[in-house]
């Protein structure tokens, strides 16, 4: 019974923790402009993150070490540094976006300018990172993040033409008034949002925090293969809701306030209140995860003591990094830079950094010295290699598409 509860809890938190500010904004934007014609990218991205999260989780469970703890040792300091710099830059950008996202969500509740809320939010995030137990942080925020299921209910309540909606998803096409290059830009952005590097940083390091062993691989796989796809369904529901409400108006979505309006249209104040809880929980959870990911990767690269399972005075440098990155993120947001713009940039740069994040995972997961009998099988290697090809293509196309389309305008 305890095992069933653990699996169920893991799945629920994986669903609730899947969506972050990047998923919220990008899916809503894409839904309003392209309907569900890019829904297949979400499915592609979710399958990709499942493939690599399973690998990194397996590495953590078998070796007792986080994937990137091993990367430097296995691939040498040069590759380790390249991996660290690329993934770190994107994760830091995502951390800024998530803190901004929490502030924007609170602005919708209080109508106080998000800039004034940023220091308060940053302090709360730092306090959680410093004081809260790992499991409490992950489970509480993940479960509250489940409130975003309200988007699926809203979509059902809006009563769309399901046949038309699903047909759009099945055929590779775009609305007539959009250009293919803009369509391709958003495809790359959605892919980057679904496969954000921090998700595997956090997943593998979290496995070490929770002291996974080879016996936990089944539970871990259930979390990944059930939780993540259901999280992807939430992403599709967000896109579907904005497609139904904003699509006929021919209006775009550029703010978090607009993202919540379809829920208000469908379910009124109660639905909107639940969506707001979901916004705060999803962004706050992701802010904690990205903040920790920055601390994890820097500490693991340098071989410092890290993690929330050790006392702060034992992992002092790890906690110092957490405090410093929180200050940096606060300073960036206090320049009044638009958090939505930071979010848009973070998902595109995520796509750029993907090869440097995922190639080492594939290599380490194939190393018998670390993995013993749990090395990648043929299916994992085939999928991993195919995805690496897709990832390289997306990474190569990301910046040119961003320039040519002027960030999708």
């Amino acid at each position, binding site marked *: 019974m305890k095992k069933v509860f653990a699996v169920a809890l893991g799945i629920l938190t994986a669903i609730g923790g899947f969506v972050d500010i990047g998923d919220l904004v990008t899916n809503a934007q894409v839904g309003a402009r392209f309907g569900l014609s890019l829904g297949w990218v979400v499915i592609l991205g979710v399958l990709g993150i499942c493939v690599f999260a399973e690998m990194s989780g397996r590495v953590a469970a078998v070796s007792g070490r986080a994937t990137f703890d091993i990367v430097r040792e296995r691939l040498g300091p040069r590759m380790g540094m390249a991996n660290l710099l690329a993934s770190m830059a994107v994760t830091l950008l995502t951390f800024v976006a998530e803190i901004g996202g929490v502030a924007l969500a609170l602005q919708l*509740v209080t109508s106080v300018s998000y800039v004034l809320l940023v220091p308060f939010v940053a302090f709360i995030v730092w306090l959680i990172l410093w004081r809260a137990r790992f499991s409490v942080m992950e489970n509480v925020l993940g479960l509250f993040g489940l409130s975003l299921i309200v988007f699926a209910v809203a979509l059902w309540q809006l009563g769309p033409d399901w046949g038309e909606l699903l047909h759009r998803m099945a055929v590779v096409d775009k609305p007539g008034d959009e250009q293919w290059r803009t369509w391709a830009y958003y495809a790359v952005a959605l892919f980057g949002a679904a496969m954000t590097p921090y998700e595997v940083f956090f997943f593998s390091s979290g496995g070490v925090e929770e002291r996974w062993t080879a016996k936990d691989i089944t539970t871990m796989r259930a979390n990944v293969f059930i939780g993540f796809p259901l999280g992807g369904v939430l992403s599709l529901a967000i896109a579907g809701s904005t497609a139904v409400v904003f699509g006929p108006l021919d209006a775009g979505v550029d*703010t978090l306030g607009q993202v919540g309006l379809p829920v208000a249209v469908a379910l009124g104040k109660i639905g909107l209140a639940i969506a707001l809880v979901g916004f705060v929980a999803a962004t706050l959870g992701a802010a904690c995860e990205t903040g920790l990911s920055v601390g994890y990767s820097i500490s693991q690269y340098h071989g410092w003591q890290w993690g929330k399972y050790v006392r702060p005075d034992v992992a002092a440098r790890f906690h110092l990094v957490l405090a410093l990155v929180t200050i940096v993120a606060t300073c960036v947001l206090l320049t009044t830079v638009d958090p939505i713009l930071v979010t848009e940039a973070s998902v595109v740069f995520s796509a750029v950094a993907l090869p440097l994040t995922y190639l080492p995972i594939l290599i380490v997961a194939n190393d018998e010295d670390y993995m013993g009998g749990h090395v990648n099988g043929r299916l994992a290697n085939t999928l991993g290699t195919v995805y690496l090809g897709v990832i390289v293509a997306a990474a190569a196309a990301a910046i040119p598409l961003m320039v040519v389309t002027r960030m999708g305008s």
Partner: protein
Amino acid sequence: MSRRRLVVLAVVGLQTVVGCAPGTPDGDSWRIDAQRAVSDASSAVQSAELALNQSSEDRVFDRYLQTVVLDSEKALGAAGDHIAARQPPRSERERYDAVTGQIDAAADLVSAARIAVVDGETYRYDGLAKSLADAAEALQSLETDLEHPPE
């Protein structure tokens, strides 16, 4: 420093200076910018209208409505500033006036909506939503017109 390096430096310096000088965009480039500004403005107006209509039916919280309308006001300001700062080609002067004029008018309407929302003047919501719907329709019509060069 060799003569070749000096020539390269001079060319790069000249290109930089020329590149920084304001230029007149060609018609297509201006129309794309104008379309983008009008499209952004139209989206902002429609969001404000949608939020006001939902509020009239008691489906959104006051503070949420306030934030949505304020965001729309900011988006309209940004769209207006963006296109106003672009020098139109001579052939597009007339439409430049139409674009800036309609965006300004829409911005005034959304500002009026924001004032009504902050002051809690709920009886004005229906009238404002209707005016916003008309403004959005006009902006969409202008956006369609901008798809083609002036006749």
